[in-house]
């Protein structure tokens, strides 16, 4: 749901941007071929047509891909859609746990848990959790991280 809204907003921005570009390209531009400057309205429509399927598919796909799990004191998170990303972070190496809520997340009662380690490559962000779940996870992680803290870095 969250991704759907975000995708929709991105879509609107893109089409709006295309409209603006189209309005900006006057008929007297020499760089742009004549057939295009004559029919500038094509640009936003084309952008819209190309992007529309993605707007529908991407969020659903993302939702299907996203997983997270905490077991054996290791946080595992999977994300992405066309490209996938799996992140494994042992609780003992966690430096901070953040819980954040954006506008839309608040409206939908969702939250994001950000897990930070000393390295950007070992940090992970779990998006779109139910607020209570996120709060519980963040709490749990922070508590365990304190117990297991190991200062190798």
């Amino acid at each position, binding site marked *: 749901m969250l991704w759907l809204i975000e995708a929709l907003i991105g879509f609107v921005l893109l089409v709006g941007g295309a409209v603006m570009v189209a309005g900006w390209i006057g008929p007297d531009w020499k760089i742009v071929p004549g057939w295009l400057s004559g029919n500038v309205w094509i640009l936003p429509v084309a952008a819209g047509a190309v992007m529309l399927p993605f707007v529908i598919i991407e969020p659903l796909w993302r939702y*299907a*891909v996203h*997983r997270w*799990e905490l*077991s*054996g004191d*290791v946080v*595992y998170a*999977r994300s992405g859609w*066309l*490209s*996938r*990303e*799996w*992140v*494994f*972070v*042992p609780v003992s*190496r966690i430096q901070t746990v953040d819980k954040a809520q954006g506008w839309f997340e608040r409206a939908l009662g969702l939250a994001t848990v950000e897990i930070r*380690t*000393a*390295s*950007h*490559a*070992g*940090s*992970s962000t779990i998006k779109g959790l139910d607020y209570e779940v996120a709060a519980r996870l963040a709490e749990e992680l922070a508590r365990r991280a304190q117990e297991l803290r190991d200062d*190798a*870095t």
Partner: protein
Amino acid sequence: MTPSDHSDPSDPGDAGFGPGLGGGFGAGAGPYGARRLSPRVLLIDPIRLLPSLFLPLAGVLLVGGFSPASFGWAALAVVASAVYAVVRWATFTYDLTGDRLELTRAFIGRTAKTIPLERIRGIDITEPPLHRLLGLAVLKIDTGAGGNDQEGTLDAVTMEQARALRTALLARRPATPVPAEATGPTDTGPEATEPGVTAGAGPEPSGPERAGRVLARVPRRWLRYGPLSGAYLLTPFALAAGAAGLVFQWGEELGLTERSARQALEWVWAHPLLLVAVGALLLTAMPIVGAVMYAIFNWDFTLRTRDGYLVAERGLLTRRTVSLERRRIRGYEMTEALFERWAGVVRLWAVVTGLGDSATRGQLLPVTPKAFATGVASEAVEPFVTPLRPHPPRARQRRLVRAIVPWLVLAAVAFALGWAVAGVVALGLAVLGIPLGLDRYRGLGHAYDGAWLSVRSGSLRRVQAVVERRAVVGWTLRQTAFQRLAGLITVTAGVGAGSGGYPAIDTGETQGVEFAAEVTPDWLHPFLTDPPPPPGDPSQGR
């Protein structure tokens, strides 16, 4: 050439520094006392300000003519800058109390920076040429806090103070007292407790360091490998650009008008041979200037180990000494550019947790033959002999595609638009992409020997990183849509040091996961035995 220290009675730092250090700090008590920087810095500050003053001064003199009034203004500016330097010097103090170092600047506002000693990751002592003439040094304290503002800078203290401070700051564990007393009286090392002993030696860098064992001393003949790194090759162009900028900046004041500038340009265009000659000159200057710059920065590079620290010292004009805590070294990176690989030479960096400015501070060796660098790496950090495992042949296809296809597309577009020259150039680059892609594939590899893991990648700049297992803070496995089609996956070991993450690019799906599982079995096995093994699982089930 080196000023003797006790000939300068106004220097408060020299008097009684040694005893205060050996007794007071070593006992873990007793005030060290607030200190000022060396007053000799007052000689340097105005000189440093001169360039920024020169332009306004010249402007004033030119505009006002050489009248007494304009001379007055100029003198005022000089006096003001001198006063500013004195105020800056007088209001800054540093103090070593118990287990922390405090830097205080109290003028109108008051800022105090407190650095707990156990947070210090490294000490960087730099002697720019002017400082060197006066026997001074800039001491930088790396705390791993990140950002240039976060580190403590003492600009400037005398060389003896800098060395004594380094000893005091680094030998912070109460269990190990300042080890100056441990060595015999014959030792004339710079950290000897009495500054008077070393005053004659001054900041002589090649003197024997106390309790230090030399790991590597780079012979001067190896300086000739310098230009291969390509680091300073662009210096002539930078210099030329700088000169051009100066001409433009000062042009108006020197009476250069637009018209004369245009005339000059036309004159240059009328003599194309001259242009070619200048270009050729710049090109030939590239390796020469590169070599000179490299030699200046890496002159007499010496790597020592002392009291659990690695100390790297280098430089001809600006002498720089960097101390790295060995406890925080998590591995090393060995870099070889294309030309360097042909010559069989490499550069070596340490991977240190929380090191700021690690590109220069982490350097363990400049360009040296590979066997030598490997020896130093195994002595300074850890030997790593396990051969690297190659990545699957599909990775080669992917490297090739990535090196060739973008140029092919560009060539197609260029030809479609009728830009033949650009198209041919792009085609040429695509052809070059074939050996490049093959070489990139040859560069790929990863290995794990039970405690250390290693990954290698790159062609034009090939980097092999060797990192300790316990430094890994997490794994990121990434697979793009194309990688999924090819059954490849990029496995990145997150490390809280160095560049942050070390990727094994384009491993096979099972190979990559096995690599991660091999290094940290208990992190990945719970998920691997789970019904849907995460990687290599293109459908998302459930």
